[in-house]
């Protein structure tokens, strides 16, 4: 496709007006607050964006539900817990292997990720209640598999009919001492997006699992990696790098995770937060209860990976570790640069739009920047204001009725196990040296002035944005993929990576460069018009006629 009309006379205000033009007035008013023209660069405060509010009925949204966030995102990639979905068959079926969470079965050989467990509720269960069926199902699962843990997930009708899944879990957990059984009230209608489900999942993992394992895992420089889900093997690559650097990742929340990893998280000396949105509160709770400080990291992008590793080195402050980290970076970067330099002539100056998740739309901008590509529009599917504007807005966030349904845990320092990893003086010294704790500036500050930032983008707006700004690549999820591609613009999935991955770390960056090079350079986008459609006015006859 020729891009002659690219980036023309459209001013950001015109673009915003165009996106809102077709809506009924009430809808337009609401969407106007969720579509912002970025003015954050250089300013002390960024303009306010409305986020984490209800989706408008009838507007084709990218969002999923609370259950999807709880079972699909957080608990889906745990390998040795039997996850039973209490409800009709569908919810369990759709979250079955569809998020490309990779795993290895570990030394113990336990891996339930390829399995899909459901109580398959029928109408009589809805009428008479499904607790008995759930109890029987958990017993059947226990007797078949004897897993370390069984988790129960509530779907919409379970909440409505009032099945007490927690009571069932408590009863059976007491009955089977070698199996930790607990439940999640993650009915799909709670909250406004997947985000509520992440919160419900994390709270229960923190309550029922973290701290259970009293023996500290062996290894130096122990960290937790929070908010990494091992899509397409990302976690494998990050772990490879950690290992090479001598950093011990004792628990990933929750890619390729195991029961024992969650249960040992309190033994770490530092928590590193990848996806801020899905897990920042767990980092806070680990700090309050056990004294583990946390820093924000980003392993998407080679330069970001190097930066994040150095941050970890700085925290531990051990010259041996710092040297090893620098050696590893020096060893890994040349290969990355070879590929970056190879693709650069073809990707430099190209543009991207990213509308995914609640952190990824930010993290991936670094990776694009490494290829000389600019992100001209971005936004989150299930973010809160702090993901756009930075953590400083958290105290001022209003708790609306939809958020009030989601339990907030209040934790205190654990009398027995709290141990401040660093003294206040040490923390102050590190901060003075530039290491920021509990810090996230949000997406807005990293995007150009005047770029369009949209919360909860929908199909109509996506199509308009693509038509107006004609990006060279659009990033979103599977539901958006083909409508964007019908417009002749390549679409890269960043929820489940299409067929690619890993994209994290050094090897991931190489994979991503090659993948984007392939997408923006593919010949197929030049085939949209047949020769006769390009020159329809041609009427001359051939000689042989």
């Amino acid at each position, binding site marked *: 496709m020729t891009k002659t009309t690219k980036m023309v006379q459209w001013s950001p205000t015109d673009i915003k007006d165009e996106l809102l033009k077709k809506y009924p007035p009430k809808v337009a008013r609401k969407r106007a607050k969720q579509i912002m023209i970025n003015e954050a660069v250089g300013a002390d405060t960024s303009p306010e964006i409305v986020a984490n509010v209800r989706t408008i009925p009838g507007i084709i949204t990218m969002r999923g539900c609370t259950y999807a966030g709880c079972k699909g995102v957080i608990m889906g990639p745990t390998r040795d817990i039997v996850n039973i979905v209490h409800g009709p068959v569908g919810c369990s079926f759709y979250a079955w292997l569809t998020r490309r969470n990779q795993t290895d079965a570990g030394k113990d050989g336990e891996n339930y990720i390829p399995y899909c467990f459901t109580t398959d509720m029928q109408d009589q269960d809805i009428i008479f209640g499904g607790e008995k069926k759930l109890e029987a199902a958990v017993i*059947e699962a226990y007797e078949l598999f004897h897993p370390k843990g069984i988790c129960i997930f509530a779907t919409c009708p379970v909440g409505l009919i009032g099945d007490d899944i927690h009571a069932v879990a408590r009863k059976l957990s007491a009955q089977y001492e070698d199996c930790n059984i607990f439940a999640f009230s993650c009915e799909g209608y709670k909250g406004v997006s997947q985000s509520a489900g992440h919160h419900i999942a994390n709270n229960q993992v923190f309550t029922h699992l973290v701290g259970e394992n009293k023996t500290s895992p062996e290894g130096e420089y122990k960290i937790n990696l929070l908010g990494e889900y091992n899509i397409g093997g990302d976690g494998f690559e990050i772990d490879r790098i950690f290992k090479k650097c001598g950093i011990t990742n004792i628990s990933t929340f929750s890619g390729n995770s195991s029961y024992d990893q969650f249960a040992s998280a309190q033994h770490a000396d530092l928590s590193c937060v990848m996806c801020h949105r899905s897990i920042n509160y767990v980092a806070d709770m680990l700090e309050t209860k056990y004294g583990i400080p946390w820093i924000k990291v980003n392993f998407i992008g080679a330069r970001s990976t190097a930066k994040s590793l150095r941050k970890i080195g700085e925290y531990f402050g051990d010259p041996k570790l710092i040297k090893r980290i620098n050696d590893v970076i020096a060893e890994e970067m040349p290969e990355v640069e070879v590929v970056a330099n190879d693709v650069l002539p073809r990707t430099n100056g190209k543009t991207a739009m990213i509308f995914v998740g609640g952190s990824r739309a930010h993290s991936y901008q670094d990776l694009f920047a490494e290829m000389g590509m600019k992100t001209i529009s971005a936004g989150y599917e299930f973010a809160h204001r702090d993901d756009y504007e930075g953590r400083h807005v958290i105290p001022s966030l209003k708790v609306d009725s939809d958020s009030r349904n989601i339990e907030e845990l209040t934790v205190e320092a654990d009398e027995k196990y709290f141990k401040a990893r660093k003294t206040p003086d040490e923390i102050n010294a590190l901060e003075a040296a530039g290491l920021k704790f509990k810090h996230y500036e949000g997406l807005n500050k990293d995007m150009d002035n005047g770029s369009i930032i949209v919360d909860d983008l929908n199909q*109509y707006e996506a199509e308009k944005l693509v038509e107006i700004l004609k990006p060279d690549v659009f990033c979103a999820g599977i539901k958006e993929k083909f409508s964007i591609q019908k417009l002749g613009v390549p679409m890269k999935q960043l929820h489940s990576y299409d067929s690619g991955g890993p994209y994290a770390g050094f090897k991931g960056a190489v994979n991503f460069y090659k993948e984007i090079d392939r997408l923006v350079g593919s010949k197929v986008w030049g085939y949209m018009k047949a020769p006769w459609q390009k020159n329809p006015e041609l009427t001359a006859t051939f000689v042989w006629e």
Partner: protein
Amino acid sequence: MLLRHTPTEITERKSLMINPAKTCQPIGAMYAALGIHGCLPHSHGSQGCCAYHRSTLTRHYKEPISAATSSFTEGASVFGGQANLLQAIDNIFTVYEPEVIAVHTTCLSETIGDDLKQIAHKAEKEGKIPEGKFVIGAPTPSYVGSHVTGFSNMVKAMAQLATPGTKKNGKVNVIPGWVEPSDMEEIKRLASVVGVDITLFPDTSGVLNAPLTGEYKMFPDGGVTMKELKDTGGAIGTLALGEWCSADAARWLDSKCKVPCTILDMPFGLNATDRFIDVLRTVAGVTVPEAIDVERGQLVDMISDMHQYFYGKKVAIYGDPDQLISMCEFLRALDMQPVHVITGTPGKEFERRIKEITADMPCEVNVKAKSDMFQLHQWIKNEPVDLLIGNSYGKYIARDEDIPFLRWGFPILDRQGHQYFPTVGYKGGLRLLEKILGLLLDRKDRDEPEESFELVL
């Protein structure tokens, strides 16, 4: 071993379903609705259902699947979803301008008792439905039946558009059931070769196998039109392909509009296609042209040429009842033996049909409705097979047990082509044979010791 925890020893399970061979009603309703021209499916419930159904359909058809949702939050779940649906109808007609909105319920909206008819009526009274546009609906609680039932319910809602007393139009209604867009296209081609004017509904051809042109049409050119649907009451007869997917709609047209119906099996394989063509020509009163005899003869030719590789081979197969019934009959026509057959969809009649079709096998068939793939895998561990047939989820069993695997059914998430190449009719039969033969012979070539590895097979 991917499914390392599946034991060979079979224990009885009453409450826990493991690895389902079905999913829930709304996704079927959504797929059926996409077969109406200019239709936007709408999921009345919380937004996750719609997201999941769109994702799964997108992954299977590799096409944009547009559908809206009522986006219930807790308030709607307590006070009812009427306000959400009314607002949705208004927004949808304003922003997307479809001809028709096809609403289906979810387990959430069904449990709180939302009445689609009453809400649609209210929307009409309040002027939220523009002139000449429609809102149709089907109840699809996820705790009843399966995706197949949901498909059937939406197809019935389509039939219910027909007005009794419509003037006879000389056409034949054909209800194809849940088959691929390519299959729907093939059914239309067969009817046209036979010389019968049909109304096919639903018809996803042209909708879910649309060309890439640089232009995005939320409502592609294909699909049965609302006018054609209203006109189905004037048809000379209805052929419903598949008891589970299509019969309800056909019977409704029969009883309410006096359009006589015949319930047939889906035209997969030789015999079922024969019956389809035979009934089609009888209903329409035409003679079958020679072109059809040629197509049929080619299929028979290939069966005879390749019979040695099919004969006696054992097959495990799972999927949806209508497809399985015809496929098992085809396998028997090839002298293959479908020894393990399961569907997740309930219905005792299914087990009876499969037993009837496989009655001439030298061994008894293991058949079960309302079953799951965990059970199927255990059966396979106890009695191995030469071929596994079913949707993409079977690849875990196929790899663990090292069985050649034919992807056929719904959903197929990891291969393409099903949206373009039919498996119905005689030509579809040829494609199935080609695929099965390829799988069996690739395996033979892989396993043969070097001294007996031969060029000519």
